[in-house]
């Protein structure tokens, strides 16, 4: 009757409490290296990278994308453990995204009518979508692998948060290669790409994270 308990008691070894933060950072860190290498070697850095990193536009793009990931990160850590609430991170991420959309919209309205199409579409909007998604794949995989070592119980939410982290970091890394400068472009295509990765995470989460 109690043989399972006997087995488990026999199998007991001291268990050091898991540290989601260290595990997840390791997973994400390794994946980030792969993504950076991929972007540099396959897509190539933008030709004017050294000049670009002295401009505010480059860093706004980079920081906003990193900020989205940073908002989802604590959510991911909380969801890695059974019985902890996800917290407010996703609401804050939505707020950041909303702010970006407003800024992008204002930027579009302020642009001269003749330039509006370019401000919105840039010269690479379709490429941007799939390149950000591609850059995010190793990050998503690394995050999911690390998450599987923990014990998430809300798989869809955890998948979404993992996708948001991967998409945000992926977009930030892709900005090494991307020459688009317009805030409207970031607010539309970058944001859409990150949202797609997050949605894919929510879709795949229950399957990938099951234990």
């Amino acid at each position: 009757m109690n043989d399972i308990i006997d087995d488990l008691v026999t199998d007991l070894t001291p268990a050091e409490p898991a540290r989601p933060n260290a595990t997840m950072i390791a997973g994400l860190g390794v994946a980030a290296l792969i993504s950076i290498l991929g972007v540099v070697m396959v897509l190539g850095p933008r030709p004017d990278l050294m000049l670009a990193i002295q401009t505010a536009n480059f860093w706004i793009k980079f920081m906003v994308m990193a900020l989205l990931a940073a908002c989802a990160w604590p959510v991911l850590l909380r969801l890695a453990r059974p019985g902890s609430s996800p917290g407010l991170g996703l609401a804050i991420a939505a707020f950041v995204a909303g702010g970006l959309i407003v800024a992008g919209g204002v930027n579009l309205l302020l642009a001269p009518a003749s330039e509006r199409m370019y401000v919105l579409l840039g010269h690479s909007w379709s490429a941007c979508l799939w390149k950000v998604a591609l850059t995010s794949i190793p990050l998503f995989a690394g995050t999911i692998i690390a998450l599987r070592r923990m014990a998430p119980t809300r798989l869809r939410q955890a998948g979404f948060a993992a996708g948001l982290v991967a998409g945000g970091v992926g977009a930030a890394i892709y900005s090494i290669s991307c020459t688009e400068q317009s805030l409207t472009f970031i607010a539309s295509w970058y944001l859409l790409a990150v949202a797609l990765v997050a949605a894919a995470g929510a879709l795949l989460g229950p399957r990938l994270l099951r234990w």
Partner: protein
Amino acid sequence: MSDPEAKLRALMALSQNGDAKAYRILLETLKGRLTAYFSRRLTSDAGSADDLVQETLMAIHVKRATYDPGQAFTGWFYAIARYKLIDHYRRYKVRRTEPLDEAAFVEDMADDFAAASARMDLDELLARLPEKQARAIRMTKITGLTSAEAAQAMNVSESAIKVSVHRGLKSAAATLEDDPGDRS
């Protein structure tokens, strides 16, 4: 040590240090809780409820490192039980017999706190019932056995258990309504 949460938390802390005795007590306690939890939600599927008890105990064992000593143990524990239940529904696409919501979860948490005082009232109430009915109710509703298990333990048929429980609860309810007249 009358607070179940504090007791379980202490047992878990000892278990994480490798204390086999504490771990056994912890698992036995959790097994009782899980049996009650799953059989209440899978009333028509005792086999699956038993499987889920085993599976959840196993999951708790494998994932025990993910319990953070700073967090509520019952929260961690019921999150895993609930996850295994949802996973079961997903796997077998069984229609839920009961809405699966926070209420059920809160109900389990509240059980811990209400249990002690309720137990006293319950003892009083059960003492007024015929021995057979009282035992049947104790086994199925308090210990958390299935009707089949209780039948085996009392050496009667499963339907006899169900009848005893039903009659017992009915007359207990009548007592509560302060109508002791008809209790034959």
